[in-house]
């Protein structure tokens, strides 16, 4: 499954990294504490969070994540978008809250174990 498949399934809005949507998604992680995400996310994970500041791009890039989904309709800061474009990191926006979206991703077959 690719990032693009997830975008289509849930009607996510693409805010950055539209050229990197063919990336294969291997598992997912949901969390808003950056160090926790650094410790537990794995390469290729899709990351579900409510954080919108530029450091989410730093974390996702360091951990080689497949993309970031902001929940609850939260929009990324402009500096976050700039960094995401620079790093080629997809940033997507969902109107669903984190629990709902994570549940739906899990139902799609994306597990937490990556």
């Amino acid at each position: 499954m690719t990032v693009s498949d997830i975008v289509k399934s849930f009607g996510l809005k693409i805010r950055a990294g539209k050229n990197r949507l063919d990336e294969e998604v291997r598992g997912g992680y949901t969390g808003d504490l950056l160090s926790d995400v650094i410790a537990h996310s794995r390469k290729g994970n899709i990351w579900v969070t409510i954080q919108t500041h530029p450091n989410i791009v730093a974390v996702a890039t360091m951990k080689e994540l497949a993309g970031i989904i902001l929940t609850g309709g939260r929009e990324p800061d402009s500096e976050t978008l700039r960094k995401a474009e620079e790093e080629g990191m997809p940033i997507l926006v969902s109107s669903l809250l984190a629990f709902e979206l994570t549940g739906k991703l899990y139902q799609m077959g994306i597990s937490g174990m990556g």
Partner: protein
Amino acid sequence: MSGAENNIHLHEMFHIAGGNFTNAGSISSQVKKILKEAGFSSRVIRRTSIATFEAEMNVICYASRGNLSLFITPDFLKIVVEDEGIGIPDVDLAMQEGYSTASERIHELGFGAGMGLSNIKNNTDGMILTSKFGQGTHLEFLISLEGEDKSVPLLNAGG
């Protein structure tokens, strides 16, 4: 050790302003860029970036100012972070996952999970943390280059 210290191919120092969340992460991205341009492996870059990011965030969250130094030698990368600030009253306690003294504001930004120091430990090959409560903290860590491709130009320049 003195032999290794004499063999430093690069030493860069960065200033970190405590409480400046606007530029948070900028030092670790600069370090990452240096390592990338030098041609280090993605494993070395990832481990160093994670540890440096956490160290930088600790200064921003808890100190008034600090300096982060990057040393590149043929055998290891070394990062030294010294700050002036509140320090850590109990280093052993601070090393425990989940222990945090972060304020509400810090939590809202997604920091203060109490995992930063253990993330540093888990991504480095040696770490020393000392602190004087009320004065500041001294952190050093090493990333070994054992088994790495030593053809990185930086390591051979003038060596």
